């Protein structure tokens, strides 16, 4: 096992190295002069131009530039946003909790609904119940979520007005960002004494549509996976043994069946969670959710290159770490995989 982990760590380091290279070359591959891109019209002044070039280290050779880029990155310095003039790392820290909160709620929603649906579809295999669940999950995982999110918004926010249209919380509430998770921050002593449950309820209402939209594809994937995995398990001999022992139906399905079927599902859930970032880019743009997805899209439209560079580096690193963690956990559960 240790050997496997070491091998994974070696791959992890190489992959991270590649990701950092990609992110480093982003600024240098864009057609045109990066200094002019960063300075805009002010770059026309040769003095400012030269200062900027030296401060970016662009007067040095590429390998030297890369090493200093890495050094700075480890010290938490990834440059400043051209638009807001704020440190990119700080901007990321301000926005990341919003994305994490949205993704986690979406994932919880997908797991809580997806696993039971999958189990029901497997147990009722080839009945109309199975057909309905399977068709809905088929539609779900083919769903263009940017369209789906707008449809949800049209129905629930604009027509029935049961949920807010955009943002994380109404402007009425001035909640102190203690953890960055509004569902937690609205319940701190201070906010609670000021607003009671109303702030929490308001933040929760803002979460409903975005997390439902974002959770749709994971929900479909998880219910499909659960169905497949459950059907595999139902054929196993220990299930027959459990049945012949005269155990109750629910005990057989949930204790003996689901427990074993869950292993591949948890793995997939880990991978889906990384993929949620992609969905977050679209969902956040539509619901004006102040997370890293919206940040990235805004910065591309504004050609804010330091932000693009840093956010791709952050997001890719998070996903690489997550995927490797999932792999190692999976190998810990399933020894067969370690040999590969």
């Amino acid at each position, binding site marked *: 096992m240790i050997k496997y982990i070491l091998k994974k760590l070696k791959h992890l380091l190489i992959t991270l190295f590649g*990701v950092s290279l*990609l992110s480093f070359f982003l600024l240098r591959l864009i057609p045109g002069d990066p200094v002019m891109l960063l300075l805009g019209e002010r770059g026309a002044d040769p003095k400012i131009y030269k200062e900027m070039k030296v401060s970016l280290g662009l007067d040095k050779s590429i390998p030297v530039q890369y090493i200093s880029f890495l050094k700075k990155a480890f010290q938490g310095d990834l440059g400043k946003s051209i638009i807001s003039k704020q440190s990119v790392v700080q901007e990321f820290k301000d926005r990341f909790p919003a994305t994490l909160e949205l993704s986690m709620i979406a994932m919880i929603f997908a797991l809580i609904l997806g696993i039971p649906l999958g189990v029901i579809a497997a147990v009722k295999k080839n009945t109309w119940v199975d057909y309905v669940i399977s068709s809905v999950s*088929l539609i779900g995982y*083919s769903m263009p979520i*940017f369209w789906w999110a707008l449809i949800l918004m049209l129905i629930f926010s604009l027509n029935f007005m049961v949920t807010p249209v955009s943002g994380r919380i109404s402007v009425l509430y001035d909640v102190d960002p203690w953890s960055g998770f509004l569902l937690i921050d609205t319940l701190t002593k201070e906010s609670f004494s000021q607003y009671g449950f109303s702030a929490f309820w308001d933040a929760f209402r803002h979460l409903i549509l975005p997390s439902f939209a974002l959770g749709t594809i994971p929900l479909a994937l998880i219910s499909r996976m659960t169905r*497949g995995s459950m059907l*595999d398990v139902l054929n196993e001999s220990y299930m027959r043994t459990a049945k012949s022992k005269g155990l109750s139906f629910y005990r057989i399905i949930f204790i003996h069946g689901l427990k074993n079927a869950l292993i591949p599902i948890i793995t997939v859930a880990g991978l889906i969670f990384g993929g949620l970032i992609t969905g977050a*880019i679209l969902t956040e*743009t539509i619901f004006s959710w102040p997370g890293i997805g919206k940040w990235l899209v805004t910065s591309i439209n504004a050609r804010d290159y330091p932000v693009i560079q840093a956010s791709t580096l952050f*997001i890719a690193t998070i996903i690489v770490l997550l995927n490797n963690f999932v792999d190692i956990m999976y190998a810990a559960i399933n020894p067969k995989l370690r040999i590969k």
Partner: protein
Amino acid sequence: MNFFFTDILKELKKNKLAFLGLIIIFTFIIIALLAPIIAPHNPSSVFPNSLTIAPFIDGQFLLGTDDLGRDILSRLIYGSRISLMVGTFCVLMSLSFGLLTGLTAGYFGGKVDSILMRFIDILMSLPSILLAIFVVAILGPGLFNAIVAVGIVSIPSFARIVRASTMIEKEKSYVKASMTFQSSSVRIMFNEILPNCLGPIIVQASFAFSEGILSTAALGFLGLGAQAPMPEWGIMLSDARSYLLTAPWLLTLPGLCILTMVISFNILGDGLRDIFDPKTKRRK
């Protein structure tokens, strides 16, 4: 080779859902090919006297018009051309690069394999839209660049599948026999191994097609793919955002088109996988 495809078709006919997918795809292809004949108007023609007409009201504009007075039906018909073309190019691009990488890595193994696969790992670690955004940030927005970006994103899945099948086929006796005849590596890879890995590749191509359509539409929606007057479904959705309440049909129709096309390719892919991978059949 011909037998191969007629066999697949025969098997597909047994799977009603997958066959339905195939029929819908063919219908889309025919609509796309005949677009200039069946579309009632030019997709970019503007009718200033008929702005935002709802569907099924005016016989001249069966599915209504948008905010600029363009015929929606015609735009949707021409949009199918773009989507099918996008899917085709994405698949062709990722398939050819993935095939080369996978065959080389699987056939030679060792160092070559390690290096190529690390490269694939890096590509895989970036979520598809992020990688696409990265490419678009370098090349600038546009339909072609979006296709390139989305094509790159699908390379890893092809490479991995081809590599896995190559490693299995390599050990079989017919390849060993070929090696003893001292056939060139390229010849063995393309003439002997490749035809025997076609199954999983076709399955993956079907999924990559739907993924390509979906991602390119998403990029178009974000303003990073196809650009404005083009009748692309993602752009039509993005334009519809300003008229959610006043003209909801601008939103529903292009979305339904994307959804239908993506579902068709996905169910076709599912059906093909059942044919090539007997293990999944058991679950039916």
